[in-house]
């Protein structure tokens, strides 16, 4: 009698050990990764008006990779997680005679946030004072910037507005 009970118990223990296989060894695609900085191009006269500059392009300094171009009027900029600054060239009228390049440096601090065992950590950023430094002053087409959200933890809303 007790042997049958024991065998049953042992079997269920084995079975439950086998069934304990979990899915969290794989990092699920739905889990948000390190967020990009979301940028808006705004009218310098009215910060509420979004507009696209003519012949506009952004180039990242320090890599040959080409940035993915905007989703609508917001531009995602990947920040370098290994540095505290990331530099971009903002190009107006690209390829034409009056091409104007402003080099901007974005200053930030990184905070790493634990997700789970499979995914590990993702980086969050906090914009520093000043958030943007202009590296090549003179003949600037960019007039200024506004911080819309100084902590970059997701890509749901814009973080930075560029005024021109």
């Amino acid at each position, binding site marked *: 009698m*007790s*042997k049958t*009970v*024991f065998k049953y*118990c*042992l079997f269920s*223990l*084995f079975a*439950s*050990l086998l069934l*304990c296989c*979990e*899915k*969290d*060894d794989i*990092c699920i*695609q739905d*889990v948000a*990764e*390190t967020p990009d900085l979301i940028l808006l191009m705004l009218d310098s006269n009215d910060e509420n008006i979004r507009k696209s500059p003519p012949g506009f392009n952004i180039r*990242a300094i*320090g*890599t040959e*990779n080409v*940035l993915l171009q905007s989703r609508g009027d917001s531009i995602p900029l*990947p920040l*370098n*997680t*290994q540095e505290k600054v990331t530099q971009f060239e903002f190009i107006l009228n690209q390829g034409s005679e009056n091409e104007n390049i402003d080099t901007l440096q974005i200053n930030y601090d*990184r*905070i*790493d*946030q*634990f*997700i*789970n*065992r*499979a*995914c*590990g*950590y*993702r*980086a969050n950023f906090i914009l520093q004072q000043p958030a943007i430094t202009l590296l090549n002053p003179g003949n600037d087409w960019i007039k200024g910037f506004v911080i819309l959200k100084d902590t970059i933890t997701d890509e749901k809303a814009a973080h930075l507005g560029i005024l021109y």
Partner: protein
Amino acid sequence: MRKLRTWVYYISFWSIGFLGFTQKTQPAGTQKEVLLDSLPVKEKTPLSLRFGIDLFRLTRTQFSNDYSGLELVGDLRVREKLFLAIELGNEKTTKQSEQINFTTSGSYYKIGIDYNMYDNWEGMNNNVHLGFRIASSSHNHLINNYTLLDRTPFWPNFDTPINAGFATGERANLNAQWFEIVAGFKVQLLNNIYLGLSLRLNRLLSDSIPYNFDNIFIPGFNQKTDENKFGGGFNYTLTYNIPFASKKN
């Protein structure tokens, strides 16, 4: 690793072999003689203390650079079929869990009861037991390094491991409590020397969550998972029995 497997193989071979052996060599008719005796024999519950060591953690310590551990086990026979059981352990292990490399060290204790379901022949003392434990650990984690999750890498050095600062460092003074269901057996190898194997199904009750990390590994409990509070474990014990007193029923 090959040596370790060889050891595990031999140990299991012995234990299974002895289990069969002890049954076969039972002198037949032992029980009948007892029944034929006209005088009623007072049955005694031998109160005995058994203590020993987990061989698996011991061998793993020898053959692995990332693990060192020790588990002392003991049980006290309080009734014919009932044992008070205890396990005391200490573990230190370094793990590479996907993106994070961390070291967990700590100690644990488990206290509970084993019920022997095996009907021994007269004079034999083998156990096939089922039981439970209440367990508790106190431990800490040291995050050695990690790489950030980035599925769409843009910058060339995105996967450089972060070795210092940020989320690395120690998470101290952590603890966890859990419940175990234990099934196993103990086989008498020589007089008073036993070899045992037990399987454990663990259910986490509570744990203190470290800052910006999780108890991915808990000493004594093993892997903790996100969506599932269950875990598993086992030990391979070599124990020595001291029959220090007898208690009359």
